[in-house]
């Protein structure tokens, strides 16, 4: 059987855009989560700036030469900064989520 035929039989459909937006709208962020989101946005821009500041050698033909023929945007550095900032912000986002869960449990216990 063709690879694409196998995939066509098994593949899962993408979620609707409206369901994603509805889920995001329903979720309420607390202080820690907002801090994490803002920090990630700043790190996102920082990654782009660093990629531009530290360019890499662009042409494959002069990759091992003494002088590089053309410099290009450092894509790998940008991805690296994004990945590290994502892990850092995810940590703070998780702390905020735990605090949210604890406050909701406290509220429910208080009502009883």
């Amino acid at each position, binding site marked *: 059987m063709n690879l694409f035929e196998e995939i066509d039989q*098994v593949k899962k459909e993408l979620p609707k855009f409206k369901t994603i937006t509805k889920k995001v709208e329903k979720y309420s962020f607390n202080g820690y989560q907002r801090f994490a989101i803002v920090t990630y946005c700043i790190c996102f821009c920082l990654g782009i700036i660093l990629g531009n500041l530290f360019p890499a050698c662009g042409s494959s033909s002069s990759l091992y030469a003494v002088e590089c023929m053309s410099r290009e945007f450092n894509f790998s550095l940008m991805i690296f900064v994004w990945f590290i900032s994502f892990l850092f912000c995810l940590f703070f986002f998780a702390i905020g989520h735990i605090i949210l869960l604890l406050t909701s449990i406290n509220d429910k216990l208080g009502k009883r």
Partner: protein
Amino acid sequence: MNLEDQGKKVETEWYNHPTIVTNCIIGLIAVIIILSQSYAVNHHLSTSDIFISIFNHNSIYLLSLVYFVFLKFSFGKKYFNYLNVFLILLYFLIMVTSLLTVFQSFSLTTLLSFAIHIILFVYLFHTFFRGTRVWKEFNLQQSPFNEISNDGYFYSVMILSIIFLAVNLISAVTFDGVILSLLDCFYVILFSRYVYLYRVFMDRKEKVGQRENLFDVEKVVDTMHDVGKKVENFVEDVHLDQAIDNVTEMVSDLKEEVVSQLSKKDTQGIKKKKVESQKKGNVDKKERKNVSSKAIKSIKKDQDKGGE
């Protein structure tokens, strides 16, 4: 190379078989990464150069390798659409970075690189989102880039990558750079071939779907035709036309009888009414006579009483 005309002979050539193409891409990426690292060690490059340049050159290949390796497993096949979203995002970032590179160092190589990446991004976007909810929700069928044929996209990428290879070979200083440039060109052509094969598969799937829909309509027409023939045969067998004629005759006879009876009843009714009216008239006359005679008698009595 027109796959649609070849029909069942598509899967015989290696460049028309998706599994072989994906295997070649995985092998080629592995060779590129290993060779680039070995060349870096041979040329005694510093760690900073390796991390900045070599890793930057190989990062795209590493991420593409993740995509193609996942395709080999059932997990990747199940979440194929999600992997495609990841690939499209990756090539969008590559397109943006190549645009920034054009501003950073304007040259023929950067312009060609930008052109290849922008065409690849548009090609990926209009191929991998076919048949998905994104295609329907955002009405991508009406996109002007959808009108460009599959062959147009593939051959434009191939020609641009060959020109890019030629420019790279002209500016090549080391033999290692020549090998890497060739391998890069092969990767771009194989990758665009993979996208081409997927679009051919999707076009074939759409055609089969349209044929099935047409077949349903034809089936309905055939069944209606069969039903009509069966009805005609039934009518002939049962001599239904004669029965219908008999029924119509009986109905017309009944109608005439009813009409005649109604008319008879009417005439009888009229006669009765006449007789009754005559009788009434006679009775009335008698009553009038009695009343008038009584009145005359009473008047006479009054007159006699008055005379006396």
